């Protein structure tokens, strides 16, 4: 069939055959080439025939034009024929009007396509054929189509050129781009601007500032272009130039220029075209290093007096009054724009700029609060996200007048809006006691209207309670009277009572001194609520310790007495007086704030953010995490913990947008932040002068948490690079040193384990490029000195700690994340499973595991009080080898206690691959090696059968 077609093709393409036949022949050639089943030889001979026919029909555009187009497609589909196509097309570049344009289009499509499975890139293929002279003459072609297509070609060559190959020397490239940016045709101008943009992007930071100047000047000229798309492209380019100015070495010298750019962008924000306005507001959000007075001007339509201190404006060539006039109220206009797209972006940019200046944030807040009444849901949602963003950056200072509008949103018809509003409320510092009370009332009304959102509302109440202990203390009596009737039962069915109990508990946990004023009764009421409130409180603690805490205070005997005091202790320690917002306001001056914002810039989430950008922002957050190390080391733990918390919140914010491949990285980052948080906490506890016994219990708990988390890091992310593993091992070693610190001496078992880990580190270092750190070396030396057996010589712990230094996490390559989800369907406190006490009970768990291989050893752990039961999960039994496997496991639990009802805690564990050092004391029926959790512990409610 193919041969037949080929022969006919040959015949019909004969110059003597009539025109219709030739066109039909082209159609069949297209079919041959486009058919994925055609063999390579067929394709290449079809292409050869076509190329020959080109020569046979000189000066017949009706045939040549489709033929050229077809050749271009062929070269893209079948890369091997590309060189001959390029050679065949080249003569046409000098040809007549349309043919030249078509020929350039063919080359452009080749440049744009990347060959499958490696091989020579399109650009390098072209580079061998196109010389500078030819390109220049094409760029100065009198035919606009040729110019626009040669631009396409150049732009794709900029984007794709490997460092070695380029079609043009940079200065000629820029010359052409700048020249065509003032072309007569808007299409060409726009393509040229996009080209300059690509040029700047590729050149990156090592571009000369005078070249940025040229690009910037060129773009500003085009601000008054009559074509809206050209204006949009110009705005993008100016924004890019602004970012490059800000990033350049002479950044401080550029501040005046940044002011000018900001004002120019503001004036574009008043453009009549919606597209231009969108670009302008996007660009405004990215500007940095702008003087505060200029920023403030963009929030006020009235021209503000320019403060005497700043000479910046007079020095600029721009007329002073015109300068302020064009900046005036850009955002006021932006937020009442006709198009919700513009409003959304203006709102987002407001949030970004708010991180630079407290004054700006305050003024912007007035505008933002008004936007909560916007008629577009997208805008209201973005406004709430902006507020959230400001709150995480300590820039949210609400006043009483705002609250009315804001709390109105709790009654919004959209669940999404209500949820987002509560999320902001969590972080809000309420200005006074009146507002506090009003807010509480609103939340209670909210709870009454939307009982299905109870969890979320309790969550907010918890945060408000712990952040406003002082307000609560003043109202405690009032609240008590309200909910505790002088005699008789308290009805927890009333949402109002439940909400107030939640408030009580949360503010007590974080403000220990309040506890004594609170009637014991409230704690005992809270016990029955524990199931509903542990989740909201769960940020720092788990259900179990909450129960212990409540029982402790309500003087109810708790089953697990040993655990009780310890847990209660832990509760208080993990809930220090961390008022999320009430921290001392940052007093940095403008410039250093701006510097900080350079980091923050990366962390801003963006709806259109690509994976690449998200990865960068995660990375920059991790960098910020590592930068807290000097603070931790110098015992400025308060400051460090604040930063870490912000990092964590930012990561959580990013998590809103993350799907797919990045979730592993995000999970990793979250774990990492948690580990550093734990280390920071321990470091603080280890201050030599402050050694006290009470802390020891907590330290033990912290150490166990740390080890668990580190194991998760090491084994829960297959595909991690050696460098990262080394990094984690260093941290694990640090954990050991902490333990030594506590114990003072080193047991035989620990020593063995330590040596095993160090040898693994050495192995990694030998294989890879990294070196053992000083810290690890010293530790190794001390181990060797200690020799075998119980060491008599204490470890030089403090010296070791001094040596430890946290390095940046070196990321490379992709890795996966092992995790699991565990569920018991249809089980909650209202619907417990029936049990006959003393007999085993069968429980069906729904399990979903991610990225588990059959060699991994997974366990299901079930615990009631002190009795623990392990079930091995044989993965081979469960079908599917995909990344995600779901299955159900029905397993009996034997040790059912003889109580009316009880709680079973279950979780999925993974065993660490053996390190040949096992602790013989471990329970023989359970995992032999160290384990780590793959999911949060879940609760299973059980009830004795005759109690139902």
């Amino acid at each position, binding site marked *: 069939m193919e041969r037949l077609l080929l022969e006919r093709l040959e015949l019909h393409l004969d110059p003597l055959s009539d025109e219709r036949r030739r066109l039909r022949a082209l159609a069949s050639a297209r079919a041959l080439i486009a058919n994925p089943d055609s063999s390579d030889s067929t394709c290449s001979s079809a292409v050869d025939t076509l190329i020959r026919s080109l020569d046979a029909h000189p000066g017949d555009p009706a045939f040549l034009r489709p033929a050229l187009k077809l050749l271009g497609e062929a070269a893209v589909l079948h890369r091997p024929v590309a060189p001959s196509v390029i050679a065949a097309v080249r003569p046409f570049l000098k040809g007549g009007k349309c043919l030249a344009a078509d020929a350039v289009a063919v080359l452009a499509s080749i440049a744009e396509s990347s060959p499958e499975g490696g091989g020579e890139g399109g650009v390098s293929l072209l580079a061998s054929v196109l010389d500078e002279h030819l390109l220049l003459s094409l760029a*100065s072609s009198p035919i606009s189509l040729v110019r626009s297509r040669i631009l396409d070609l150049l732009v794709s060559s900029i984007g794709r050129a490997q460092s070695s190959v380029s079609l043009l020397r940079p200065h000629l490239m820029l010359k052409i781009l700048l020249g065509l940016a003032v072309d007569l045709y808007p299409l060409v101008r726009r393509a040229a601007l996009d080209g300059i943009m690509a040029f700047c992007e590729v050149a990156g930071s090592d571009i000369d500032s005078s*070249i940025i100047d040229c690009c910037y000047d060129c773009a500003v000229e085009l601000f008054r272009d009559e074509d809206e798309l050209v204006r949009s492209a110009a705005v993008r380019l100016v924004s890019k130039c602004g970012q490059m100015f800000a990033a350049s070495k002479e950044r401080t010298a550029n501040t005046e220029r940044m002011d000018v750019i900001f004002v120019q962008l503001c004036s574009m924000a008043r453009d009549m075209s919606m597209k231009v306005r969108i670009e302008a507001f996007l660009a405004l959000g990215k500007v940095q290093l702008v003087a505060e007075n200029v920023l403030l001007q963009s929030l006020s339509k009235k021209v503000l007096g320019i403060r005497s201190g700043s000479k910046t404006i007079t020095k600029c060539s721009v007329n002073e009054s015109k300068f302020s006039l064009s900046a005036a109220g850009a955002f006021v206009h932006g937020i*009442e724009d006709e198009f919700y797209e513009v409003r959304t972006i203006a709102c987002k940019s407001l949030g970004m700029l708010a991180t630079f200046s407290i004054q700006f944030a305050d003024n912007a807040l007035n505008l933002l609060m008004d936007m909560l009444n916007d008629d577009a849901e997208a805008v209201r949602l973005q406004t709430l996200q902006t507020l959230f963003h400001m709150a995480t950056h300590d820039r949210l200072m609400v006043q009483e007048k705002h609250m009315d509008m804001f709390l109105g949103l709790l009654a919004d018809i959209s669940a999404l809006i209500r949820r987002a509003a509560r999320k902001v409320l969590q972080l809000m510092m309420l200005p006074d006691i009146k507002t506090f009370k009003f807010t509480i009332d609103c939340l209670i009304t909210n709870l009454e209207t939307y009982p299905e959102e109870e969890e979320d509302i309790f969550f907010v109440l918890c945060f408000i309670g712990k952040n406003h202990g002082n307000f609560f203390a003043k109202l405690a009596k009032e609240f008590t009277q309200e909910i505790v009737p002088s005699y008789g039962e308290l009805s927890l069915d009333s949402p109002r009572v439940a909400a107030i109990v939640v408030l009580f508990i949360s503010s007590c946990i974080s403000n220990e001194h309040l506890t004594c004023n609170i009637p014991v009764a409230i704690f005992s009421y809270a016990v029955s609520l524990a199931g509903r409130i542990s989740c909201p409180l769960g940020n720092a603690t788990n259900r179990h310790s909450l129960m212990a805490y409540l029982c402790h205070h309500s003087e109810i005997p708790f089953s697990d007495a040993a655990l009780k005091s310890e847990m209660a202790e832990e509760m208080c320690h993990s809930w220090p007086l961390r008022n999320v917002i009430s921290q001392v306001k940052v007093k940095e001056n403008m410039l250093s704030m701006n510097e900080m914002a350079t980091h923050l810039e990366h962390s801003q989430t963006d709806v259109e953010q690509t994976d690449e950008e998200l990865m960068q922002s995660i990375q920059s957050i991790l960098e910020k995490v590592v930068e807290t190390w000097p603070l931790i080391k110098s015992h400025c733990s308060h400051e460090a913990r604040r930063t870490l918390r912000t990092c964590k919140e930012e990561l959580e914010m990013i998590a809103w947008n993350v799907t797919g491949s990045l979730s592993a990285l995000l999970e990793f980052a979250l774990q990492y932040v948690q580990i550093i948080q734990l280390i920071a906490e321990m470091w603080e506890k280890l201050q030599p002068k402050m050694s006290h016994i009470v802390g020891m219990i907590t330290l033990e708990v912290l150490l166990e948490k740390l080890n668990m988390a580190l194991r998760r890091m090491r084994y829960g992310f297959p595909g991690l690079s050696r460098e990262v593993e080394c990094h984690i091992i260093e941290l694990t070693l640090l954990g050991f040193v902490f333990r030594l610190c506590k114990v003072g001496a080193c047991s035989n078992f620990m020593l063995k384990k330590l040596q095993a880990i160090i040898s693994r580190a050495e192995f990694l270092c030998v294989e890879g490029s990294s070196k053992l750190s000083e810290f690890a070396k010293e530790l190794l030396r001390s181990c060797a000195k200690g020799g075998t057996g119980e060491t008599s010589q204490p470890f030089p712990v403090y010296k070791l700690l001094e040596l430890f230094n946290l390095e940046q996490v070196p990321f490379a390559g992709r890795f996966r994340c092992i995790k699991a989800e565990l569920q018991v369907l249809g089980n909650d406190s209202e619907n417990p499973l029936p049990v006959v006490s003393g007999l085993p009970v069968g429980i069906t768990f729904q399990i979903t595991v991610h990225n588990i291989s059959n060699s991994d050893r997974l366990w299901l752990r079930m615990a009631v009080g002190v009795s623990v039961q392990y079930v091995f999960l044989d993965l081979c039994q469960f079908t599917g080898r995909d990344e995600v496997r779901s299955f159900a496991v029905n397993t009996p639990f034997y040790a059912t206690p003889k109580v009316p009802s009880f709680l079973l805690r279950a979780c999925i564990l993974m065993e660490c691959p053996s390190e040949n050092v096992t602790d013989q004391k471990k329970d023989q029926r359970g995992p032999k090696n160290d384990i780590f959790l793959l999911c949060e512990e879940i609760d299973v409610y059980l009830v004795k059968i005759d109690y139902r």
Partner: protein
Amino acid sequence: MAIECLVLGAGQEVGKSCVVVSIGGKRIMFDCGMHMGYLDHRRYPDFSLISETGDFNSALTCIIITHFHLDHVGALPYFTEVRGYQGPIFMTYPTKAMAPLMLEDYRKVMVERRGEEEQFSHDHIVDCMKKVTTLDLKQTVQVDKDLQIRAYYAGHVLGAAMIYAKVGDTAMVYTGDYNMTPDRHLGAAQIDRLQLDLLITESTYATTIRDSKYAREREFLKAVHKCISGGGKVLIPTFALGRAQELCILLDDYWERMNLKIPIYFSAGLTIQANKYYKMLIGWTSQKIKDTYAIRNTFDFKHVCPFDRSLINASGPCVLFATPGMISGGFSLEVFKQWAPSEKNLVTLPGYCVAGTIGHKLMSGKPTRIDIDKDTHIDVRCQIHQLSFSPHTDAKGIMDLVEFLSPKHVILVHGEKPKMATLKGRIQSELGIQCNDPANNETVLIPTTQNVKINATKMFMRSCSHADFHSVKNSLPCLSDSSFGDSEASNLVRNEKVVEGILVMEKTKTAKIVCEDEFLQTLHVEEHKVQFEYSCPAEKCREQVSCQSNSGPPPSDGNFSETC
């Protein structure tokens, strides 16, 4: 050529907008409004200034009406039917639909309520409207051989337009009333960058700078919500067109979001009919309404219920829209009498009330008792909320528009004298644009630049349209890429595009610009080449070489040799 601008109305005042502009022999009347504050001859523009003989048909090329407000269209039936203008009249579709409603309503009030002698009859209105040609947005209309007009979206009210007019090379824009910020049911004014000799703009708020509309909306919603949640009734007396729809959209949306179930009523009459038009003219509304129109027409208000009189005294909270806006009589007065005595109720007032109306009395201080006539008086105990919604742009918006269009000259109309003077000063000093604020019946003469048209050959056009990068390359032969990055090198990258050509002026023909290459051909002469023997001293020789290196043939034949 100059533009002559005769201001017949709205000069240093608000009311009876009417400007007659003469450009290039054409005479256009922009708007033909009446002044609502006068009942004597001052009510109408002094049309005799246009033509002493009263032959308006030859004196005017056309009339263009910007929108349906009476101070812009009120005098039209009088002018056409009574004074006899028969020429073309232009207005947008919605204006043509709505203007008769307005005129008819006004006529009824005048004749039936006040018992005045009628200025024009119902038939006059109908006949007048028959003469109207409709305009669409951004559609260029060739009124006659020389005059082009085009309408741009102006916001303000449904169908309001700004008018661009061009005769020859002279162009101008008359804005009518406009709004640079969108509201719930209308978009913001929108216009292209135009080359203008003159901009005539309204200046109602010449010195006011308004803050965001959200604040005004919030205050209104807060007041209404507070009242109804206290079980009160809200009376919103409004004008039937424009504000009524705006407020109703606002409430309807709020009701929807806050899940409120309290009924909203629309009193019958004009409003119902107007809503019908609004529903049909979706293309002229705001983006949001256009976007959601396919799913639900915003003007099909979800929470608006049919009203009947018996509901006035029904118990429970409600919201009622009633005309007229200033409680000067009619239904809004009837309801006001019933509801004003209860402190639970709320009455909103429009931003502006004419003296003598109840609205005006309520605005000035908080009276507890209002006497309607000798026998009837009302105890006012209800709450009063004054609205501050305005469909006019503020000073910032005017400045923005003037700056955007950057015309050579600005004339301010439709404003208050002292405020206009302030704005005029700002336009002149801050934007450097000539500005006038003429009083009524004054004429302003504006000089325009005279352009001489020349032809250009195709080849010349082509040479303008693209840059020749070869010249660049040749001029930088030794620039290597290692030196690229020096500021010196990059300065060369700066664009200076020079196009060279030769202007040829022949006696009878239009002047023409040609390329060097075409020049000889144009003159029908042959090219002569002059060659030289080099027999002069060395330094002169160098001079010669530099002459030759100026590539291309000599610019003109013959006399080149003599300069050397």
